[in-house]
């Protein structure tokens, strides 16, 4: 089963990371930027799992890192969406260019 070399999977995760970077660069909508961040975190997770499985199969550290990253990503998404909805209530827009002042 493991006859597929590691670099192929790393190709997928690198592509995912840079697609997320592209989204983060071009988009100005906060929800889309949040999605881009999720993509980036997912590519990091794939990297952790692959390195753990292929290079250090006797340890489990990569899996722990993946679990912690998933938890933190979920918390981050929850808080970000709370902030976005509040911003939409006060500014009627979720474009980052429109959010100029920090306190309304």
């Amino acid at each position: 089963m493991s006859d597929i070399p590691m670099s192929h999977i790393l190709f997928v995760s690198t592509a995912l990371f840079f697609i997320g970077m592209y989204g983060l660069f071009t988009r100005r909508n906060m929800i889309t930027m949040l999605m881009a961040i999720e993509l980036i975190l997912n590519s990091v997770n794939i990297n952790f799992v692959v390195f753990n499985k292929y290079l250090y199969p006797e340890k489990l550290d990569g899996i722990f890192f993946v679990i912690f990253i998933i938890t933190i990503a979920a918390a981050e998404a929850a808080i970000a969406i709370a902030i976005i909805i509040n911003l939409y209530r006060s500014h009627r827009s979720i474009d980052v260019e429109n959010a100029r002042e920090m306190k309304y």
Partner: protein
Amino acid sequence: MTTRKIFRSAIWLLFSLMGIAALYFWLQVEFIAAVQIIVYVGGIVVLIIFSIFLTQQSGNEMPKQPLRRIISSALAVLFGFGLTFLQIWNYSFQPGTKSFDWTVAKIGSQMLSTTKGGYALPFEVVSMLLLAAMVGCIVIAMKTPAATNGKLKEEEIENIKIEKQKEVIITEISEV
């Protein structure tokens, strides 16, 4: 990422997250795949779709990006991708000889062990972070403190007892 309708991009995000979960299944780490499906597909994508519905009309197209920004960021991204992948390609990894064996029992015992290589301290730190995130969400979402304070505190105390992953999903739910 390139579609201009935000709802479609959320659906594509869902499909790509499912694809990543399938990749985990293929790598035979079914636990991570299950966690991925539960937390991302069940929690985060649903939350994102909710917030899309709350904040804008789903049929509206987002405004077009300036061409200069698209070209420059695409160039930067392609350059970075080429550089990174060149490095990966030129480095020859030496795969480990042993077979990768994990069980949920192993993960659990190492996560709660306080000896060398144990992950008890990060576990506690993450649970504190989740608590802080939950309190922060409640504070952000609270409009009039007098009206809703008691109910939310009850909910909060109840939430602390529940284990980690559930805590995340409940945070999202109570926040929505």
